[in-house]
């Protein structure tokens, strides 16, 4: 089943894909057609979205990786759609209208990594306190020590 998807994605979009794990297919996509790709995958039965997982790099220090993880509940297969973003342009089109459950996941990715999901209606802080907006704590460049509370002086 995943072999079919691999061939179809290659034919329709020209994206390379590789087996990631048993039952998981990894598709290397590009930002411009990620919405179309996800719509296509939804038609193929991958209708249960798991999450948007952002990784700070690839290659290290040069940008961010956005992974969309989708499951096919009837065939019991996964796909992972990977989009690479460079440090200078951290924008990606939102897919909240294709997969409504991903809207809060995109919101979390925005507040933790500062990746702007264009079209997402609610890019506002959710988990962090209001004063922490714009700190992007899950980035590797975030300085943990700078924001730590001063410890009590030793006796």
């Amino acid at each position, binding site marked *: 089943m995943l072999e079919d998807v691999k061939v179809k994605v290659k034919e329709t979009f020209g994206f390379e894909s590789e087996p*990631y794990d048993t039952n998981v297919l990894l598709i290397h996509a590009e930002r411009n057609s990620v919405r179309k790709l996800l719509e296509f995958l939804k038609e193929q039965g991958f*209708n249960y979205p*798991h*999450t948007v997982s952002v990784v700070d790099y690839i290659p290290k220090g040069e940008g961010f990786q956005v992974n969309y*993880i989708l499951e096919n*509940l009837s065939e019991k297969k996964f796909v992972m759609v990977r989009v690479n973003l460079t440090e200078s342009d951290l924008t990606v089109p939102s897919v909240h209208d294709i997969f*409504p459950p991903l809207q809060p*996941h995109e919101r979390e990715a925005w507040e933790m990594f500062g990746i702007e999901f264009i079209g997402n209606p609610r890019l506002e802080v959710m*988990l962090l306190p209001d004063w922490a907006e714009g700190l992007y704590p899950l980035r590797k460049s975030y300085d943990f020590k700078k924001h730590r509370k001063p410890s009590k002086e030793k006796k």
Partner: protein
Amino acid sequence: MGNSIASSGYTFVLEERKEVSGEDLGLLQEKLLQLNWGVQHPASGPMRLKVWVDGDEVVKVDPDIGYVLRLLEKLVEYRTWINAIVNVERACFIDNFGTMTGYSIAAEKIAGVEVPKKADYVRTILCEAGRIVSHLLGLGGIVGVLGVHTPTQWALIAREKFLDAFEVYSGQRIATSSIVPGGVRFEPTGKFIEKMVTAVDFLEKEFIPRYGEVFIDNPTLKIRTVGVGKVSKEKAVEIGLAGPALRASGVPSDVRKDYPYAAYGELDFKVVIREEGDAYARYLVLWEEIQESAKIIRQAIEGLPEGDYRTKFPVKVPPGEAYVNVEWARGCFGFHLISDGGTGPYRLKMRAPSFANLWALPEIMKNVKLADVPVIFASLYMCHGDIDR
């Protein structure tokens, strides 16, 4: 936002509303009332639910979360591969075994470590015990929000027996830190097995008959829960429900069956599903899963193999990544773990089932009665440590 009146701990905010269903209904009806349901601790943990009501009909719901944010995903990056379990298990303290198992399997996949069979069986026993412990609190919680606290107390008595077994096994009752990459941390001694069998015996012979007689086919409970918060099969997938809530809508999704891990592939059990999709169906799914879990524990104890319970896990793990799902008590918990060749995780993304259920909640709570809000909330079976991480 209008004026706010504080009286006896509640805050009411009056908000202007232009029209109601296209009609101008006069001065009083033009106002929507915003209620803060549980400013700090409504039912299962610290959160706030902003509920806009028109009369006693809910118009809109917006959860306000982040009160127990610990940023576990960041903390993990400062730990070694083994030490990271203390952060991972704190995603939710009630069933900590499932999260530790998922993280460990992901780490083992990257490192290419094969776990001894005995460790798989011990993991299965602990995971299922954790599921029972968690589901017991869930059952008590659903009846608890209706104002009856006896079932919670009964559930806690049954839960104590399992905590006794965890204490014998690891020395801790709640945060056990007992499952690590490479196996489990302790030998499953005869005393532990004995305690676990005692707990399952108590559950099956004392708790289940007594609780089932009073609180399952209970007419008052049915009046409050049957048909409340109904979600159809298609809708459940569309809004992304997870775990028992998804299965209560008739979607047979269970990671233990679909992608077997630990020893689940060798054991005989069935996936509990209900077709109704309402709050009562979600309650019954929890109830039946407890009984299934008890059976799994008995089988796993029977088939517990001899041998090692832990292998060596390397200090440095080669670069790589893995996405692993486990069926945790509250649904499928996903771990996207990445290694850059260091002594600890480079990045861990946790996909929490309660987070998915929480954001499906505004959709389910449209146009329900205000009195049903606590029932629907409790029946979705969420944990706040898991939502915020």
